[in-house]
């Protein structure tokens, strides 16, 4: 709750005024019917109409409705601004926080989960909590004020309304508990149906290839029929709530009319008073319904708030050091490094490596052997548990992350393309690059051929699937080609480019790697054959190292790995 107040912080005044306006508008809106009643009481019968008094009340009404309408309007505006601004603040805080969160957190949480916290949960929080608060407040004010006005008109009629109203809750509760079961079954069946749809439509090409269409239609039909039964019941039962509560309301209404009519001759109630009571009897239920739905919404919102704060309060990365590199030659020393993601399971230990400037280090080994982890450590996406990594003699924890990372050029296994133009994507590391520079880099990375043929060239807007995987990789390579950092990290960069294109890219890379320390991770042995040092990793350890010939001669793991390519 405290955290929430902090968030609301600068909007406290908004909230205060919103509550005041809500109160004004509610009280006046409830008072206006009373005045109408008074006005009607002046209209008794032929030749018994007191026009002066009638107009006195009507004029009052006019003033009040204008004030009340203005108050409602102001309240709406304030609520609008408050909720949208708070949502904006939370989101902006979240995105900033994401930039400094340790990758271990981001790797462990699915993207969808974090996105839903930033987007959906934030919306629910602001709607549910802030609007909920004003609605709850006006609901309570409405009930209290209605009761006061009703009592002031007639005690007995009011008591009748208070006694009968709970019946409507009982009825609503009864129905909703019945329909709940059907809703559960409906959503269960719907879930199964969606799963089937996703499978069959997603795998439609397989379905067609195996002539499975009839069978899949039959399975769909089965679930569809089942869904129909449950849906129909769920829709029907739930739609009974409104008529039923309306029925109870009508009974109360009739009761008020009966009792009121009996009381008028006794002089304890006027005709206008009865009309006021009747209209209150109609509205009396509404705030109760509102409040109960607001409370569920607020509970919901609190759950969302928890999820948002969980994200916002995640510990940040260790603070950044101030240091910078003077110039980077490309000396990398790894001394006694130990690291694991899960502290229970050790992964990398006693890792030692000495890399001289311009060396080309190839890392090979079976999946899960620690190749990607190595990159995570070099780029300081993760910090080592023990030991240290030195770049040009400096511990990488003593320089700023920016300084370290901008001395590496990185192309990752899963290519990442941001939505935007081709140019935006290439200029990612160098926003002020000129078109000549871009084209030059693209030519060297062999991506210019396909970029040139895109409908708008560099200005083509890229979507998720508008270019092939191979083309995406070429773009990522171009991105690095443009920056020319002193060291390179290539993770499986060429895995889905065909071998001919790969050869061309390889030439470009050779040019790029000349004089630059580079680390290459690849399954494809042809890409790493001309490395100066090959690290063969297995289970987090370097089991063999040396160049291609040496390792082949050694006749061990690398030999096996290499020769499997030629067996047929």
């Amino acid at each position: 709750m405290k955290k929430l107040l902090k968030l609301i912080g600068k909007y406290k005044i908004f909230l205060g005024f919103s509550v005041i306006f809500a109160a004004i508008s509610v009280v006046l809106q409830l008072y206006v019917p009373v005045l109408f009643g008074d006005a009607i009481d002046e209209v008794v019968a032929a030749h018994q109409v007191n026009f002066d008094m009638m107009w006195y009340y009507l004029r009052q009404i006019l003033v009040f409705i204008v004030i009340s309408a203005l108050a409602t309007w102001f309240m709406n505006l304030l609520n609008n601004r408050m909720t949208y601004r708070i949502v904006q603040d939370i989101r902006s805080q979240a995105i900033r926080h994401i930039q400094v969160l340790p990758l271990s957190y981001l790797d462990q949480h699915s993207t969808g989960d974090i996105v839903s916290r930033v987007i959906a949960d934030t919306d629910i929080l602001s709607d549910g909590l802030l609007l909920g608060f004003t609605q709850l407040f006006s609901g309570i004010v409405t009930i209290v004020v209605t009761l006061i006005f009703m009592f002031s008109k007639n005690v007995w009629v009011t008591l009748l309304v208070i006694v009968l109203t709970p019946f409507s809750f009982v009825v609503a509760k009864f129905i909703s508990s019945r329909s709940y079961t059907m809703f559960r079954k409906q959503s269960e069946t719907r879930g199964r149906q969606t799963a089937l749809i996703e499978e069959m439509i997603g795998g439609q090409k397989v379905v067609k290839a195996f002539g499975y269409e009839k069978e899949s239609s039959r399975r769909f039909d089965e679930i569809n029929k089942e869904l129909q039964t449950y849906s129909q019941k769920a829709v029907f039962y739930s739609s009974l709530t409104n008529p039923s509560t309306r029925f109870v309301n009508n009974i109360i209404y009739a009761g008020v009319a009966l009792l009121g009519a009996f009381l008028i001759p006794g002089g304890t109630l006027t005709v206008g008073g009865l009309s006021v009571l009747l209209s209150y009897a109609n509205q009396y239920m509404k705030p109760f319904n509102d409040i109960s739905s607001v409370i569920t919404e607020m509970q919901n919102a609190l759950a969302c708030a928890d999820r948002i704060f969980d994200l916002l309060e995640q510990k940040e990365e260790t603070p950044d050091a101030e240091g910078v590199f003077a110039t980077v030659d490309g000396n990398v020393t790894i001394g006694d490094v130990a690291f694991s993601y899960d502290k229970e399971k050790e992964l990398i230990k006693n890792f030692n490596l000495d890399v001289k400037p311009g060396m080309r280090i190839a890392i090979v080994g079976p999946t899960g052997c620690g190749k990607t982890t190595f990159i995570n450590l070099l780029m300081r996406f993760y910090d080592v548990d023990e030991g240290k990594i030195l770049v040009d003699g400096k511990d990488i924890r003593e320089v700023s992350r920016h300084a370290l990372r901008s001395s590496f050029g990185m192309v990752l296994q899963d290519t990442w393309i941001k939505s935007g133009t081709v140019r935006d994507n290439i200029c990612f590391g160098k926003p002020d690059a000129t078109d000549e520079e871009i084209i030059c880099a693209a030519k060297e990375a062999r991506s210019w051929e396909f970029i040139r043929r895109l409908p708008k060239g560099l200005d083509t807007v890229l979507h998720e699937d508008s270019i092939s995987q191979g083309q995406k990789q070429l773009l990522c390579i171009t991105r690095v080609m443009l920056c020319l950092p002193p060291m390179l990290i290539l993770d499986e960069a060429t895995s889905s480019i065909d071998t001919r294109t790969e050869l061309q890219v390889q030439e470009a890379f050779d040019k790029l790697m000349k004089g630059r320390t580079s680390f290459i991770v690849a399954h494809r042995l042809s890409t790493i054959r001309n490395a100066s040092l090959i690290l063969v990793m297995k289970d987090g350890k370097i089991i063999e190292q040396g160049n291609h010939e040496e390792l082949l001669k050694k006749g061990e793991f690398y030999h096996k790995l290499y020769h499997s390519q030629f067996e047929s």
Partner: protein
Amino acid sequence: MKRLEKFLRPYRRESILAPLFKLLEVVFDLMVPVVVAQIIDVGVAKNDRGYIVEMFFVLLLMAAVGLLCSFTAQFFAAKASVGFATSVRQAMFDHIQRLSFTELDTLGTDTLITRLTDDVNQVQNGINMGLRLLLRSPFVVIGAMVMAFTINVRCALIFVVTVPILFVVVFSIMLISIPLFKKVQAGLDRVTGLTRENLTGVRVIRAFCREEQSVEEFEEGNRELTRLNEFVGRISALLNPLTYVLINVATVLLIARAGVQVNIGNLQQGQVVALYNYMAQIIVELIKLASLIITLNKSMACADRVAGILDVKSSMEYKAVAGNDKVDDNMAVEFNHVTFTYEGAGASSLSDITFRAKKGQTIGIIGGTGSGKSTLVSLIPRFYDPQEGIVKVNGVNAKDYPQGELCSEIGVVQQRSILFKGSIRDNLKWGNDQASDEDLWKAITIAQAKDVVEAKPGKLDFEVEQNGRNLSGGQKQRLTIARALVSKPDILILDDSLSALDFATDAALRKAIGELEGNVTTFLVSQRISGIRQADKILVMDDGELAGQGTHEELMETCETYQEIYYSQFPEERPVVMKTSEKTEKGAAE
């Protein structure tokens, strides 16, 4: 919308009865103020308690009958709308099954799924609400006006003026804000997209030190969204206060005029109360109507999208009976000057391809990314029709096979391995639902998946999760191959489907497939020379054209593209002078 009408037709009775009963309910609602007026003007004025009690029971009776009418209406509406949605869903699903690959490519999986789920549900909601409420609100408004006329014409005139004004206000606010809501949605989509991007690209963003710019870009979208939201908010914030003022001003005028009418004896006090009540009913219904129209608007858009899917025509036609022009029984597959262009693509993906594959041969296909390898093999089971030329399978034009028959002769293993929720047995039986466990194990053994299946708890009964989530890429690939083998196809197509396998398994698998019993023709698509060099015939694809065909040895002599690919994979064998290297000979001898 018209397109969907026929699905509602079986529920014509329900669709008429639902609104009808709803109208009956409204009639009883509208009578209430009249009865109350009678209580006041007759019962109270004459102090006739008996009459008042009588009227009280009339009110109760009306409430009860109203309730019954309403229940009936809800029942019919639920039956019609759910029944409608069920048949639309089934029709869509069946329709999608009939579409050819060309349409599936254009529409995209995600779209189809949303149409089938969310959109159909929205339409169901719309119809349900529409049947119950669309007629109700206008009927209440008009009914209230009519009732007002029966009470007093002069007073009723105020209704005649007020109601249209209210209509205009409510609907113009709606008309202005609905398109704006769409903009807001687009803004929200952008912010969501940017959030996702920041997460999926976190390594790249950090590697290029672009944190600040990413935040800035996000902030821009964020601010824009807030601005839009506030703008729309300001407009819709007007709705409540405006209608409130209008209706109350009208009521003030009503009472003022009623005062005059009562004074000259044309009207009684209870009737004033009745008029006052009608005014209140009108505003409630108008607001309901407005929100109903927003819902209906949404579901209309969804209905359009649903109908859009049903309107897509399959671009393929099938012969009812097999043609019998079997020319050359010895030929498994024959391409005759085939040219193919994907729907909407600028350039052709295959141009003028001609080759023959004899029965029992192994055909290797190699070439660069996007050179047309997969496209070529997807023409064999007639996933697509070529624009020019003829594809013959077993001597018969692929277009002359009745639906389903061609597929049953061909086993295709696609690049993306897709398995379905269910046991391994269920999955494999896709190929042939009559297959015995023995048959399945045989296929599994050939596909080198024996150790995979045996290691799983339950073996053949092991439950595969949706999309084969609980299997590794290599395991999935082997099982999809086994699935294709279960159908004992005459022609087996492996479209780069060994990519996730390690070298040893890859080799063993290719060997096992080479030894398949029967006269099976195999097509192997690969990027690796080692994957196809043993083939009886190799097709070399380059940018949609057939750059060469022949055996490995022939191509090494004649085909430049092939040589280029070869040396890119075996650089140390690049000879100074062309000669067959030791390794090639060794490989060929095996």
